[in-house]
């Protein structure tokens, strides 16, 4: 397997230390620590409202943390204490780091006014000043990979939800990210369309992409994840291999969550 060659546990891609996040009086993250190494696939599960989306959004600074430290590839991205900034990378570096962090949203968020292929190329052209022909070629290859090469000239509205999500994955990959963040990528899909998106993600995992995936697909997590994190009420309750967390959960909350979902 090529997969194992690309894994490198000594190379930390994402590290968060004691992060907290408040929305006004509401404490959504109450001190979260973990790290993700190169090639690792980490699935985050947990009841809704437990702060999973907020955690992902903090990683690429769509939200600012209230307290704690975030490192991307061992570079300090954000450090805050008591809602005050101690250290924050400048806007240029933030843009560069966001290029390394691909994000896939629950609602796809494709750009409706752009054709599928232009959805893939707009950011590389705008942000990285990529050559139009080269990036279009690469975009077509990515669409081929997600099985949608023949839809390149369609507008997103003409695609099914599953196809749109696969385009969204290809769009993120067009930026050559080192880490992919997925926020419930299949939750908005009709059940019969879930499989095609999970397959695409599985291929990506097999290629050695570092991935953090928030999901309710327990079967998928068991099969693909190197590590599973169970979150509830803004804290990590349990963390370990799928066998540990999914098959032999220790905490009561984990047990009751899993019994409800499966």
């Amino acid at each position, binding site marked *: 397997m090529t997969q194992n060659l690309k894994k490198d546990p000594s190379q930390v891609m994402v590290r968060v230390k004691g992060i907290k996040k408040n929305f006004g009086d509401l404490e959504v993250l109450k001190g979260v620590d973990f790290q993700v190494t190169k090639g690792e696939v980490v699935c985050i599960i947990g009841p809704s409202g437990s702060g999973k989306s907020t955690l992902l959004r903090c990683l690429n600074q769509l939200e600012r943390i209230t307290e704690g430290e975030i490192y991307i590839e061992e570079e300090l991205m954000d450090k805050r204490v008591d809602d005050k900034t101690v250290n924050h990378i400048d806007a240029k570096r933030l843009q560069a780091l*966001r290029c390394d962090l691909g*994000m896939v949203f629950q609602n796809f*968020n494709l*750009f409706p006014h*752009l054709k599928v292929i232009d959805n893939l190329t707009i*950011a590389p052209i705008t942000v*990285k000043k990529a050559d139009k022909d080269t990036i279009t070629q690469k975009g077509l290859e990515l669409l081929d990979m997600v099985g949608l090469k023949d839809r390149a000239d369609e*507008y997103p509205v003409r695609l099914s939800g599953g196809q749109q999500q696969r385009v969204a994955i290809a*769009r993120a990959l067009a930026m050559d990210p080192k880490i992919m963040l997925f926020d419930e990528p299949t939750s908005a899909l009709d059940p019969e369309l879930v499989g095609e998106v999970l397959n695409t993600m599985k291929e990506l995992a097999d290629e050695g992409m570092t991935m953090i995936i928030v999901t309710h697909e327990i079967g998928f997590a068991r099969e693909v994840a190197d590590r599973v994190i169970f979150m509830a009420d803004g804290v990590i309750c349990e963390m370990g291999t799928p066998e540990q967390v999914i098959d032999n959960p220790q905490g009561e909350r984990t047990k009751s969550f899993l019994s409800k979902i499966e």
Partner: protein
Amino acid sequence: MSGTVIMIEIALVAVIAGAVFGVIIALGRMSKNKIANAICWFYVWFFRGTPLLLQLFMIYFMIPIMYHDMTGGTLTIDPLFCAFVAFSLNSTAYMSEIIRAAIESIDHGQMEAAKALGMNHAQAMTKIIIPQTFKRLVAPLGNELIMLLKDTSLVSTIALYDVLRASKTMASSTGNWVYYLYAAAIYLFLTTVLQIIFDKLEERFGAYEKR
């Protein structure tokens, strides 16, 4: 006939100035800068909250009086120029609100997706958000242009011969009522043409929404 030209001139100048400055005021209203925000808020508050006729009078009559009081000299302003300024200021206020509403109606996820892909705010605005407002802007801008066209009849009050005043003069000097119908026909012709153009534009900008 020259009345028709004046009417089209004023409406066109106002709609173009309104679109350009309207974007600026709209961005000001949405900016986090408190001063820019306050100035733009005040601008819209004033020009939407007072009648266009009053604004026309303030520029054509009030400013020369103020000038006289302050300097003792006399100032005469070309009435057509006054009309251009008053209509432009007024349409800027309305259009800025139309543009702001259109920008704010775009799903927040679009800005987030653009940022997550590494775009900065300006790139996200110009490549992702603003292009999506075009379709939503067409209909209200068409309405605004039609309103402007009809409102140009107000300029008869500052010594300009527009269609309405011309037909009234003709009707009373000849005793023939048909001149009023001519005036209606001119307005209807122009507004109908505009309606057709704007319907076409809306279809074009919205092409990507067709399933």
